[in-house]
């Protein structure tokens, strides 16, 4: 679920775009550093971009008669780092706005803030927290997936409620809009968040089994942790 074109307007759109551009600069430096440190792993950047682009485009049906999509940024942030995920998300959002009218140019910065920054950082942070506690990689990845997914929608709801409460024909206060939005998001997004948790955990566990040296090299799950699943 991206915030569509025409919802964030005027000064707010420019402010979010400026914030998005600053985040892209941070992300670009992250990609450059990744390429310098792991020149043989460059293809993973393309793979990460493809995964974010595709997974945030697919409408998955929910019980409520609506559709939504996974975030994918927690998984990519865990694997490649939150800054790389940030830049890949920004590019994906631009392509989706240009080619599929998914999201929008005026809401690009806001979507990057929610999906790229909040989703990537919170997913990566939750994974690192679980890792420090000694959780197996599958469970640590699942925690990263579910936390990242839910917080993306928490952030999107906050941005949307802020925009709508200042709209010319606002019908609720900020808190009122926030309640309405979260009640509407919940039934669709919570099952998807659980699915994202399962996929993130399973993918990381499988990579550890097949290519532990990759996770060690990327400092995702290195040293003594390589032996434990």
């Amino acid at each position, binding site marked *: 679920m991206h915030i569509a074109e025409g919802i964030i307007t005027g000064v707010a759109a420019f402010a979010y775009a400026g914030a998005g551009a600053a985040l892209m600069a941070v992300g670009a430096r992250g990609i450059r550093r990744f390429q310098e440190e792991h020149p043989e792993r460059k293809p993973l950047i393309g793979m990460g971009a493809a995964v974010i682009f595709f997974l945030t485009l697919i409408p998955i049906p929910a019980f409520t008669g609506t559709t939504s999509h996974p975030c994918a940024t927690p998984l990519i942030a865990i694997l490649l780092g939150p800054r790389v995920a940030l830049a890949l998300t920004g590019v994906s959002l631009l392509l989706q706005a240009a080619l599929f009218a998914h999201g929008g140019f005026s809401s690009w910065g806001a979507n990057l803030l929610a999906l790229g920054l909040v989703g990537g950082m919170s997913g990566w942070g939750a994974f690192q927290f679980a890792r420090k506690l000694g959780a197996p990689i599958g469970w640590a990845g699942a925690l990263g997936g579910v936390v990242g997914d839910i917080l993306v929608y928490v952030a999107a709801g906050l941005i949307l409620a802020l925009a709508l409460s200042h*709209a010319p024909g606002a019908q609720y206060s900020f808190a009122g*809009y926030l309640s309405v939005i979260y009640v*509407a998001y919940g039934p669709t997004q919570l099952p998807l968040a659980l699915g994202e948790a399962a996929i993130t955990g399973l993918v990381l566990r499988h990579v550890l089994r*097949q290519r532990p040296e990759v996770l060690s090299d990327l400092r995702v799950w290195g040293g003594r942790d390589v032996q434990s699943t």
Partner: protein
Amino acid sequence: MFNLRKTVLLAWVALAAPVLAQTGDKTPMKGMDEAVNINLAQQAGHENAGKPLLDTESLGDLWNLLLLLGGAVPGFIVGRYWDHLFGKRDKQP
């Protein structure tokens, strides 16, 4: 036996199907952006909410081409570099 590569390939096809079957307003399954965000924004006075700057959906069959490419290109990229994450371990000399 569980084969991750086949499972992901099947999941990819299954997940791409709803994208390819998407038919704008005629679909009964609306996205949350349309059902919640755009709906609330229009009620709040943003009449142009949801109207894209670049309306590729109005391009007829070219829209289908874009949707197919949107699924195919990421699929080819992930397939091309699959081994970098999911392949067998490097053989030690």
